[in-house]
């Protein structure tokens, strides 16, 4: 068996060396170890895996369904398969897609592919990514058709979108900041594309630049504020605690669940501690909206919420909301719980959640779903209670909000 496999590999190498046209003839034969490793690290930092993998046995072969407010997209195959992947792309084809959001055929790409972030990446970093992707096993996986609403189903429309909302440009380091800060800024604003989820969007899906990283809604989750805001963001986290969270999926404040657990699993847990710390330093330097008055629930004394909490939640999250360190997230002082948009709180109560699993934190502590057990009124009451207990303050959650998310989830969750 092993002998046969080796035979196939030899054949593959020969085909590459002597076969048809090679994508990047200029680099053929040159030493590429450092380049490929740097590309891999950037592919990890960019979490390309998350969107471009549907079947874990076919990494990077695309096909993952991505829900947007404008319809459904399917991610493309970025393995070096020549027919269905990007095997026929040149380095500059690849750079143009990453930097300008334009495919080799001149077609505009949709910003579900976060080129508004990748445009900030250095030319040689982008080529390193291409070099790494070229080493992958080519997998044939034709792309599924996108299901977008008119007029977005016409790619030409994206020319106007780009004119309005997109300016290509490589990241410019700030000389008044440290090298670590600049490295963090580059990673957050460029390959890490944190704002793709954590920055609120306008009605056409573009970032609201003035509210960068203030928290955004996507796929029926609310990605929380990750600025240094004391109340809503990571202001109470130290840089080391942010680093620990990104590396392990846990810290004393929180555990990564849902989409963020994939980010940790596929991306940040594989990044170097120094890069993660640099990102933390940068995030800690983004001021929150200080002076914003804290919202409050209309009915802070919430007896039914307290009763439901004691009965259904306190065993894990404890009666004082402290949770269990690195196991069950604390709810007291939890920014996610107090988010201005309660989508995540409601959704976690309805559907449950499972925290990220990493080598250093292998326990997948999970919260079960309560959708079959708690009514809309019950969920609203307990959500309002946890958002306003133990020093938390946030607007109350209404039964209608719960009802509407519940109906939407039932209709869209497989």
């Amino acid at each position, binding site marked *: 068996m092993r002998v046969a496999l080796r035979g196939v590999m030899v054949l593959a190498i020969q085909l590459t060396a002597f076969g048809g046209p090679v994508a990047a003839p200029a680099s053929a034969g040159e030493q590429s170890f450092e380049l490929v490793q740097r590309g891999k690290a950037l592919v990890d930092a960019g979490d390309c895996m998350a969107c471009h993998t549907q079947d874990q046995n076919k990494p990077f072969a695309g096909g993952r369904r991505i829900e947007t407010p404008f319809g459904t997209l399917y991610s493309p195959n970025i393995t070096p398969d020549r027919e269905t992947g990007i095997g026929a792309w040149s380095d500059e084809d690849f750079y143009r897609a990453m930097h300008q959001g334009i495919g080799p055929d001149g077609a505009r790409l949709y910003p579900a592919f976060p080129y508004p972030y990748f445009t900030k990446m250095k030319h040689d970093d982008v080529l390193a990514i291409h070099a790494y992707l070229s080493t992958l096993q080519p997998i044939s996986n034709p792309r599924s058709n996108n299901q977008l609403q008119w007029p977005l189903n016409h790619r030409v429309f994206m020319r106007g979108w780009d004119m309005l909302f997109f300016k290509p440009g490589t990241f410019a380091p700030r000389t008044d900041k440290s090298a670590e800060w600049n490295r963090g800024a580059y990673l957050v604003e460029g390959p890490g594309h944190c704002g793709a989820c954590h920055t609120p969007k306008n009605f056409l899906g573009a970032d609201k630049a003035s509210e960068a990283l203030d928290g955004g809604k996507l796929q029926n989750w609310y990605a929380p504020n990750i600025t240094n805001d004391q109340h809503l963001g990571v202001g109470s986290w130290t840089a080391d605690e942010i680093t620990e969270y990104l590396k392990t999926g846990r810290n004393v404040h929180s555990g990564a669940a849902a989409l963020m657990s994939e980010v940790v699993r596929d991306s940040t847990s594989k990044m170097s501690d120094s890069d993660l710390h640099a990102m933390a330093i940068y995030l800690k330097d983004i001021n929150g909206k200080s002076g914003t008055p804290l919202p409050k629930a209309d009915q802070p004394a919430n007896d039914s919420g307290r009763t439901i909490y004691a009965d*259904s939640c*306190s*065993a*894990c999250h*404890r009666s004082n909301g402290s949770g*269990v*360190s*690195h*196991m*069950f997230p604390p709810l007291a002082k939890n920014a996610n719980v107090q988010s201005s948009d309660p989508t995540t709180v409601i959704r976690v109560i309805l559907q*449950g959640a*499972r925290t990220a*699993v990493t080598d*250093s*934190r*292998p*326990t*997948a*502590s*999970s*919260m*079960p*779903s*309560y959708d*079959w*057990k708690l009514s809309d009124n019950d969920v609203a009451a307990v959500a309002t209670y946890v958002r306003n207990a133990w020093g938390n303050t946030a607007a109350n959650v209404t039964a209608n909000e719960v009802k509407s998310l519940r109906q939407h989830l039932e209709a869209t969750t497989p």
Partner: protein
Amino acid sequence: MARKLPSVDVVLVGFGWTASMLAQELTDSGLKVLALERGTWRDTPTDFAVTFVQDELRYYYRKALFQEPAQETLTFRNSASERALPMRELGSFLPASGVGGAGVHWNGQYWRFLPSDFMAQSHNVERYGAGAIPDGMTVQDWGVTYDELEPYYDKFERLCGISGKAGNIKGSIQNGGNPFEGARARDYPNPPMQMTYGPTLFAEAARQIGHKPFACASANMSQPYTNPLGVTLGQCSYCGFCEKYGCGNYSKASPQTTILPVLMRKPNFELRTGSEVIRINHDKNSKRATSVTYVTEQGEEFEQPAEIVVMSAFILHNAHLLLTSGIGTPYDPQTGQGVIGKNYAYQIVSSVDVFFDDKIINPFIGAGALGMAIDEFNGDNFDHTGLGFIGGGYIALWNTNGRPIETHPVPEGTPKWGGKFKKAVAENYLKSATIATHGSVMSHRGNHLDLDPTYRDIHGRPLMRMTFDYTDNEHKMSDYLTDRATEIAKAMKPREFHAKKREGHYSIVPYQTTHNTGGAIMGSDPKSSALNRYLQSWDLHNLFVMGASAFPQNPGYNPTGTIGALTYWAADAIKNQYLKNPGPLVQA
């Protein structure tokens, strides 16, 4: 015709506590390990979630987590003069099916055996003379000592996050612990659980009459704990759903909460569920097990070759599989010859109920291993001269639960149903408690396991036949323990109390305990034991048999702690001795 599969380094038959521990150890050594489990995959959030796990009807009365007799059962008789009949419903004991085994639905009561327990034969003869062992009693030494197992007990305690207080650290007696325990290198990894009122009253009364009560060691977490593998358990919420249930809070040590999160991620480990091993294939000439044959839920048969075969199912299945596979010589109670099926033993339990007028016990604030105990009358902690028995047991007041269907304490003489019954339950539910005795069962020539001549299982194999009854030794010992428990009950000054001695023949119907032992016992002589001191088969050197089937008799403690210690002890022998030089680890 079975389809033959590519060979693996190690195949594990059954996937509960011992298999998970061995798989973790042996994959660390780089071996490719495959576990075959007849039941299904089970995990905390999907199968034991807090939103539904506290369901008595589903889990206890409808037996959701236990072995189904339709898949496997045994026949039972009290003595050779009776005809054994199939057990068609579970009763006296509750083996599991599925990943994690009975490690999912145990209470979490954790004990080490006494140093003298491992030398039950030689120790008793030395102290009391040859007459201490009556005719027909077949107790044996284990071939391993407490001191040898001590580091492995310790390792298992760290894995599980046992909550307790040491009573003897390196020979120095510790206040608040069990002063009778064997010397240990260090304390438990977590402090004892918070004690509730019932066990506290018991401890006060026991202390008044001169005993030394202590908080029982518990596999329910007294505080959050991260074990040496990096797996985290939460703090117990004292919900009172441990035994017969999976824990929804990640607070009871089980394979799922201590090992599987790490093990299941390893590339050199594989688990196949729905795969029931029906035979160990072996080669008598080379003295090796060659493969196992298993059947899937779809009825397909596979042959899985392996370099090492480990039997890691519940004791009854281990013994049955050895018998049906023709490994070793079956035990014959007439001649005392043979070893497979020999020295089946159990536990003998009794209780004293206490009822108060003025004390609110709140039994529903419970946990499986929440209790206070005394150990004055266990093993050989007391002078047996003139008592007419050997062995003993602990006496404890556990506050395991106040589950509504199971818990309806009523005084003696209350009708079994109707208005008076309901009134008595309402009056007494909050104000009563039970003192339990947990006694040893010495092995006896007639108590054994063999193949039934009449009944067969779904695969056409003979069912296993269990022949078991309590002997005079057990009844005398248990009565003695019940009398001591009654003295404590009196000192608690209840309104009334009622002692329930264990009388007459053993019955397989009412639930007592799942502490079945023996059938493939360990020892130092292949003529009298099935396994050597490393749990290695005397007959096939690459076959190891884990679990309580190796106990030559059953001491007066819960078995899981010692099963864990023996497993790590065997794992160490496999890793550090057997792999370097495959062959018998002890020369017969």
